[in-house]
């Protein structure tokens, strides 16, 4: 783009990933982990943090190297860098807890293929200085984690009657098994999106209405 380079870091640099350009709710990127591992809040959190780490680390490195990577090998380099950090995360999680590792399944490794990460590398880190990239990646990563949690919490509460593994409703609660199944993932995310759309429309209506009345 022809836009002039703007190196100032603003609140927006950080917050756009949280809400305005939230990778999940707004951009619909990286959907697979979002739906696959959010059947419990703890998995969602772990996945979010892992992604955040990869986003941050690869973003930083790419931003640092951005001027010395020839355009033609750009993508290949980014992928290798991202894959490196994903492997690191993969082994780290195995070292921390095998149970968690088993619960997340192959999806840790699939972070490599998370469209969001390569997308951010391309669109942001390769064009901005490290500090700015870090701030932005943190925002994006947190936004992603937040979205995962939104799903994980709902799915765990309904699907297992617990939150972060803590039983909420006692043993007689009937869990809604569907929520932890694939279909539930789709439906809960769909429901969240509906909710946001509804809020958005209500907001724009209230913005319009006073004008119309006066």
């Amino acid at each position, binding site marked *: 783009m022809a836009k002039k380079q703007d190196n100032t870091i603003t609140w927006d640099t950080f917050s756009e990933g949280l809400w305005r350009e939230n990778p999940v709710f707004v951009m619909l990127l990286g959907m697979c982990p979002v739906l696959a591992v959010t059947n419990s809040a703890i998995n969602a959190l772990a996945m979010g943090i892992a992604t955040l780490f990869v986003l941050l680390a690869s973003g930083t490195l790419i931003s640092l190297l951005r001027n010395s990577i020839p355009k033609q090998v750009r993508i290949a380099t980014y992928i*290798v*860098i991202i894959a*490196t950090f994903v492997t*690191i995360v993969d082994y780290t999680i*195995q*070292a921390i*807890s095998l149970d968690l590792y088993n619960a997340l399944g192959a999806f840790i490794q699939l972070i490599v293929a998370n469209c969001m990460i390569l997308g951010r590398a391309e669109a942001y880190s390769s064009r901005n200085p490290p500090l700015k990239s870090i701030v932005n990646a943190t925002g994006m990563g947190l936004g992603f984690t937040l979205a995962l949690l939104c799903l994980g919490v709902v799915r765990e509460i309904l*699907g297992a009657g617990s939150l972060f593994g803590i039983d909420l409703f006692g043993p007689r609660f009937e869990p809604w098994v569907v929520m932890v*199944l694939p279909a539930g993932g789709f439906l809960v995310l769909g429901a969240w999106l509906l909710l946001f759309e509804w809020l958005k429309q209500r907001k724009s209506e209230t913005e319009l209405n006073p004008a119309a009345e006066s």
Partner: protein
Amino acid sequence: MSTPEAQAIQPSTPTGPMIRTLMGIAMLSGFLVVLTYQLTKPIIAENQRRAIEAAVFQVIPGAVARRDFLVTESAVTPVSPDGPTEGVLVYAGYDQQGNLNGVAAKAGAQGYADMIHLLYGYDPDCECVRGIKVLKLAETPGLGDKIITDANFVANFDALEAKLNAGGDALANEIVTVKAGTKQNPWEIDAISGATISAKAVGKALNQSTQQLLPQLMPHIDVIRNAPPPPSEPETPDSGTQ
């Protein structure tokens, strides 16, 4: 589409920098990854050992020490870095005194959603399965996972008969899963109503595995019985796992 002059200029390919960058980055990655791998390897190995051990001790009541063996058609040999690599891996569990309490092996069968992988403990003395542990499960939570949580179902494996026939080439009675509440023989598994499929998969897995393993294992069971005590005394497992 484009102006002629734009078409003419094919950007030159910076061969040197391209190769240098990609190779450099690749080697750097290789280094980083191998570093992580080496750093975490002992921890992960320890994690895995503990997980296996916990599972083995769980399915072999009373075991406190374990040794691994490879079962092949002709022999049973202890696992060692320079021993054979092919064969079925079994874990032998010994009690405090070094007596063989049982042998644990892996089994698997297609369940409702995906493969169910189990570890079961086989007691050569009573010729029965003494316990199972589900290693990997993708069944429906709340339904399929009853094969872990349902006490009645788990009780099936207190002593599930798996006796070889006279010829020693197959089970005397196939292990079968029967409808909940209709178990009559020691080689039958009472299914779980509502999760018949998962329960059947367990039965099928056990049947398949024992049918294949026992004819090879039993003739050589003494190799395991008489094996020297485990190389290094493992730390006493928590009492909870027993």
